[in-house]
Every structure is written in structure tokens, then in C-alpha cells.
């Protein structure tokens, strides 16, 4: 676990790219609830990506949203 956290704190230069699938999205709103800095919902309730390449401090939130998404509509590429 320490190694994982160590990686978080040392990833200031690291990049991740987030992808969302509007087709798969079921509008449950988990991402907008737990990571509102990165995700929102459009007027139809479907996911909107606010930050495609979040910085290191936001990456844990992005991962949390991806894990909680019931439609698995969020993917994160290192």
C-alpha cells in the first residue's frame, strides 16, 4: 500500500487521460457526486468530462469515480 501512496505523492509530472462513454452512461450520477471537479452531468443526466487530464491531486478522485461507476463508463489511461 505504501508503494501505491508513494506513487501518488510522486506523480506531479505524471499524466493520466480520462475517457468517458456517453453511450454506456446510465446517469446514476456517482461520478458527479464523488468527483465534481472532474465530472458533471449534462441536461439529460449523461456524463460530461470537465477535466480530461487531471493533475496528481485529483487522480485519486478520478479513480474512485471510475470504480463506483455502475456502467463502467469511465476509463483511465496511464
Amino acid at each position: 500500500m505504501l508503494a501505491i501512496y508513494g506513487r501518488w505523492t510522486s506523480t506531479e509530472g505524471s499524466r493520466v487521460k480520462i475517457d468517458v462513454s456517453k453511450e454506456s452512461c446510465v446517469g446514476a450520477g456517482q461520478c458527479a457526486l464523488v468527483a465534481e471537479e472532474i465530472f458533471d452531468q449534462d441536461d439529460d443526466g449523461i456524463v460530461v468530462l470537465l477535466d480530461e487530464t487531471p493533475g496528481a491531486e485529483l487522480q485519486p478522485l478520478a479513480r474512485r469515480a471510475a470504480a463506483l461507476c455502475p456502467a463502467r463508463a469511465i476509463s483511465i489511461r496511464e
Partner: protein
Amino acid sequence: VDEKTRRAAAAAGCPHALAGLPDDGTQLQPSPTLRELRANGPATPMRYTGDQLGWFITDYELAKRALADERLTIKSERFPERQGEHPRANTPDDLHTQMDEQAMESLSAANVLGMDGPQHDKIRRAMITRFMVKAVRGRRAEVRAIVDRQLERLLSLGSPADITSQYARPVSAYVHCLVLGVPERFVEGYVADYEESPFQTQFELVREVVAEKAQNLGEDALSDLLRAGLTDRETEGAAWMLMSVGRDNVERMISTMMVALLSHPDQLALLQHDPALLPGAVEEILRYGNPFLGLLVRTATEDVTIENFAAEAGQSVSVSAVAANRDPHRFDDPDRFDVTRDAFGHLGFGFGPHSCVGQQLARVEIQEAVGALVRTLPQVRLLHAEQLEPMALASPIGLHDTGTVLVEW
């Protein structure tokens, strides 16, 4: 002998198949059988109606993967066999016989909890707008006003009182009317009678409500359906779904959260000392007090293999939210009610394409209803809760009933 043949042979004899749902527990004290089953493997063979053998999933990771797997359709005509001495609740089949042809057509066009694929997605998308995070946040003050009014009423009725019927039920029903946009003149009837009415009576009310709504569209979920370009049958079916689904489960969770808090005074004290814990505490009760011993039954549309789990085409599959939510591989010390833990990831609202449409609204309702009650009546005590002992299941899929929750102050 290949793996499939071996499994088929094992299932045919199947000495370890469950005769039915382990229903000797409650939402707060689940059947000890669940722990044994989970320790023996991620899924257990279980008997279903029609003398069929299917599966009961108790492992968290497999539960999530199964619920998200499109090869497992939510279209099902079977239920787990009954086990123990508790009588079976009405099956939907019993209720369908009471419906006219138009209602049947409406349901086949819009029953999102009985279909998958493009038609499901179309109807679901027409429903979701008013339940998104932003929309629900915008309703919080109105939810709070409903809660305050019901709390005032509860106080005027006096101690002792039943939290389920005298508080949780009206709170949930009035909020439902608010967000759906049920016209004023139908609201009191809906709150008082809808849930207990036969399906046909419900459909007759839905038709009146939809007809009136069409004359006066507003910023609400029923108006959204009418704007979505659906057919008349789709609109009627979707409106029936919205009016019928969800409110009972919000009622359940408000009541059960009060039972859990009043029987764990240390956790109640934490919450009263720091109201900021409330949203997390609601997640925790959705995990710890979940009533879904089995979620809606799925059916394998083909032979399905997920890691070591294999269901044959046609077999029924039940996912136990109760068991998954207490999987020690996912939640530390899972049988402990801990309002400070991070309980997100629970399957309290299901998972996959059928996960609860109204979950963000439900969170706000439970937070507001329980928050106001423990703030206003810090001295409230639990006299008796039926759900502390095993009750007859509220649905044959496996749903722990709420029962009366008598409190005094």
C-alpha cells in the same frame, strides 16, 4: 471429463444446493448462512421455481461483475424457491392478472426492470434527468420542508409512534410527488392509498395523472416523459414505473437507519456530535442495513463464465446485495455498523445498467429525514422494531421487510 460435464453432474446431484433463500436473518442481522456460503465460494447453486437449478452470488467482486454483465438479462420469470416457514409474498404474476390489456402493453413497452437493450436505454434516459446530482441538490430545501412538516405532524401525534408508517412513509411519498410533479389534487390520495392498491387501480390513477400533466407541463420527471417523444403506452408504462418504484425503498432505509442508530448509541452520539458525518452514515446504512437479500433475478442468455463462476444458458442468477455488502474482502470488519467508514462501493443501489435511477434523490431524502429526527428528538428511544426478528420476505426475489419501528420520546 471436461469442466462443463463435471459441473452438470455436480448440479444434478447437487447435495449442497440451497433449497431456497436463506431467509432466517434480517437486514441488520443477516442469516449466518450467508457467511458460510461466501467462505465456500463466490456463488452457490440454489433451487428456483419450476424445479430449476440456478445460482446465488454472495461474493462482492463476482456480484459486481455479474450485475454489469450483459449476458445476464434482467428478464426473468423465476423466483428462488421458498425456504423456511415464512410465507411467500405475492408474485408479480399474481398482480399482473389484475391488469387490463392496455396496462400490460404499457408495461411491456416500459418496464425497465424487466428488459435490456435499446428499448431499456431509451426509457431509462427519458426518466433520469430530474434525478441527477445537480437537479437533486436544487430540491434539497423543498425536501427539507417536507421533512419538517412530517416531523411536526409526528410530534403532534405524540409518543409512542411508528417511524415507518407515521414518518418514513409520508416523507418518501411526498418527495416522490414533488420530483415527479404529481398534480396537487392527486397527492393526498397517492400518499394514502397508492402503494396498497391493486396494479389496475394504480394504472387508472397514472392515466389520470398523465392526462392532466400533459395539459400543464412543468419542471418535473413526469413532464420530461411527456416531452421525450415516447408513445402513449411507453409514457404510461414509464409513469407507472416512476410512481411505483423507489418510494418504498426510501421508506425502508429511513426506518432501518433509525433502528440501527437507536440500537448503536455510540454511533448515534457520533452523528449527533458531528452532523457532517451524515452523508457517510447514509452510505453505511445502505451497506450495512440493505434489505435486498436477493436483487432482481437475472437469467443467463448463453453459457456465462466469469472467472471460476459458470452459469449455463437459461439458468437463473440471484445476486445477494446483503451478502456482498458484508464481504470481508471488500469491507473491513463488515458486521460492524460504523458511521465513520467509507462505505461507498456498496451494492445498496445495485450495479450495472439497472442501478437505481433515483439513488441521488434517495440519499438526500434519507439524510434529511434521519438528520432532522435525531436533531429534533435527541432523547428518542427504540421501544420495538419488528425487523429485529426475521419477518416474511416482502418480495419473493428476497427482500427483508421493514415492519413497524416503535419509538418513544
